[in-house]
């Protein structure tokens, strides 16, 4: 059944199983032998010489294309939210009273700096778009740099932190906008959107973009965590 030969300076075993001949190089026989030994001895340690599928140093192939596309769209969403809200400004001249024949006019401005929630919104979206840009750069250019899988851990943790940041900022700005749109009769706060409707529309658009960015960043964070917990198996054993 077994017959060993020397083919081109490498020991090769010819095995006859169930009517078929198999030529197996000797290195694989040695690997299989060692793996059976170690698996028989220890239950806890699952390291197998050469056949491990959860290697701490995985070979970094270029990333799956879908993650890059998601990060690009999320970057555009958060960047546009920052820019639209940062340029949100409206000036309106209102006639307050009429004294005699002259009219008393008052110029009112609505800027995003008047509300601390909107300031937080602009800053947080700016930081998240910087984070997305950094992740895109790491995706494209950094596939060779790694230190025993630290890159996956750092990417997953940073993604999770930025998702929490964006969710806080988007929600605070959304409730502020709701207050400005509907007012609150219990606290005697008037709504301001009927006078400054361009301000409200631009703010609403920035909020929608930020929420879309939030949903995409949540999906990206989930994919990063899954990648961290299940690193790709290496396939260099078949070609020793």
């Amino acid at each position, binding site marked *: 059944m077994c017959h060993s030969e020397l083919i081109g300076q490498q020991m090769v075993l010819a095995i006859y199983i169930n009517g078929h001949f198999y030529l197996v190089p000797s290195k694989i026989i040695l690997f299989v032998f060692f793996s059976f030994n170690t698996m028989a001895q220890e239950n806890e*340690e699952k390291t197998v010489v050469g056949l491990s599928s959860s290697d701490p140093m995985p070979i970094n192939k270029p990333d799956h294309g879908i993650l890059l596309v998601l990060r690009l769209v999320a970057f555009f969403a958060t960047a546009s939210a920052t820019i639209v809200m940062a340029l949100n400004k409206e000036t309106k001249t209102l006639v307050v009273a009429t004294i005699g024949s002259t009219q008393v006019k008052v110029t009112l401005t609505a800027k995003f700096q008047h509300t601390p929630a909107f300031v937080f919104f602009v800053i947080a979206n700016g930081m998240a778009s910087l984070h997305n840009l950094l992740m895109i750069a790491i995706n494209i250019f950094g596939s060779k740099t790694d230190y025993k899988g630290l890159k996956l*851990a750092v990417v997953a*943790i940073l993604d999770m932190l930025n*998702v*929490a940041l964006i*969710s*806080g900022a988007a929600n*605070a700005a959304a409730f502020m906008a709701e207050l400005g749109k509907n007012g609150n009769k219990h606290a005697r*706060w008037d709504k301001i959107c009927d006078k400054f409707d361009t301000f409200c529309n631009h703010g609403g658009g920035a909020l929608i973009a930020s929420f879309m960015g939030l949903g995409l960043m949540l999906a990206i964070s989930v994919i990063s965590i899954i990648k961290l*917990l299940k690193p790709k198996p290496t396939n260099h054993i078949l070609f020793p």
Partner: protein
Amino acid sequence: MDSITKTNKIITILLRLVALAATIPSIVVMVISNESTQIFDFTFSAQYDNLPTFTYFVVAEAIAAGYSFIVIFLSLKSSFWRVIIILDVVVTLLLTSSVSATLAVALIGKNGNTYAGWDPICGQFSKFCDYVAGAVSCGFVATIIYVLIVLYDLHILSPFFNSKP
């Protein structure tokens, strides 16, 4: 499933119990914070219902409390841990958003907004403001603990931190 030792399980259950203990007071304090004052035969009252933001705060903290309670029992079985870590991220998101929104609106109640012509209301309703401040700080503690829970889960489950020889 990889090696999740007994100490890991005990520490996660302890962390989730502390998070549960932080969300419940914030719900209770926010719900019982109603106050009515009388000025010139008019009765003004302030409740958490009057502002949709505070209602959202109560609902989000209630979801987080219920989730913590359920996961304490689910985490005893090892096969659920990968789903649990993703749900933890979602609940952290929910908690940070609720605390952030409530703080934004409560600051208007405390300082007012002169540009929009909104007056502060904390001068008349001081007990209401104090209770809301207490509830928000409890919610903030719960958020921090949830971030720690997610980081600890990543530490347990990732192969980088449990590198095998």
